[in-house]
């Protein structure tokens, strides 16, 4: 893929995220509630029979855990990317096709 195409793709990605923030009104809450509300509306008698074993005590702690999840992923992905890139560079400079 050409560098230009890659940059174009990255710009599109950013635009997809920024566009709604700039032009659409909304609360932007991660309100997981909409489906649950729908269930409560159509099935008023239904009571959830099990609740989460652990819930983050506050929004801050929750964002900590989400950040941890992303950081773990990004760390591993970055390590792997560096490993693959370094390996292929080594192979090129050694003139070896393995």
């Amino acid at each position, binding site marked *: *893929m*050409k560098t230009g*195409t*890659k940059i*174009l*793709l*990255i710009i*599109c*990605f950013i*635009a*997809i*995220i920024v*566009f*709604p*923030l700039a032009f*659409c*009104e*909304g*609360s*932007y*809450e*991660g*309100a*997981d*509630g*909409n*489906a*649950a509300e*729908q*269930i409560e509306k*159509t*099935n008023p008698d*239904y009571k*959830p*029979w*099990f*609740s*989460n*074993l*652990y*819930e*983050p005590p506050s929004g801050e702690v*929750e964002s900590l*855990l*989400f*950040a941890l*999840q*992303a950081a*773990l*992923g*990004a*760390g*591993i*992905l970055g390590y*792997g*990317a560096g*490993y*693959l*890139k370094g390996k*292929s560079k080594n192979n090129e400079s050694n003139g070896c096709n393995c």
Partner: protein
Amino acid sequence: MKKTMKHTVALAAILVMGFGYNVNAMHIFEGYLEPKWCIMWGVIAIPFFVIGCMRIKEILNGDRKNMVLMAMCGAFIFILSALKIPSVVGSCSHPTGVGLSAVIFGPFVTAVLGTIVLIFQAVLLAHGGLTTLGANSCSMAIAGPILSYVIYKICTKCRVSSRISIFLAAVVGDIFTYCVTSFQLGLAFPVNGSVAAATVNYLGIFAVTQVPIAIAEGILTVLIFDFLIKYSKDQLKELHVAGIVKEKIK
């Protein structure tokens, strides 16, 4: 290839602007499925999980080099499902990230990787749940990846470029995940006895919000896949990822 890419991007932009409902898309909550449905989806998910574990063992035993690639695919799912992206509808939802792993390692391995992420989120983040794990697994870690895998195979068979193929696979797989979630909720909570009506109801909540986010996921997947083709082509070939062999060396 560049022209096709431009068309894809234009199509994506139109799709993104075309929707405007105020809804939100996530996994099914803890306790929001009756025990019988939890068991049913769990039973469906277990064989995929078991075969997936066996496949992982087989792949890693075959070549330890694959471990880096597999870790990267798992990490990709981790990152993407932690990213809550704002959608045009005024709320946030997150992509699934399973398309990459489905294309490279197949749907069974993806079932295991996706389920690990779901367990992490259910236990630590109160996002999804342990009782609904089977159902969420079926939608995000099994149904979505299977469709992604099939779409990628068909596209590359039709000589579509591997990058466009994986874009389509990731986007459609992501949207399909939430279609399945809607169906699962519709099945559990029919409106006036009609599963179809309820499913359409939940589709309004889930799938439509997901369209722009699915496109964002598609873009990220293409970028990573492009990197892997560049630096790990031989390994992808060994894993029999379709469409790689025909690629020209740059």
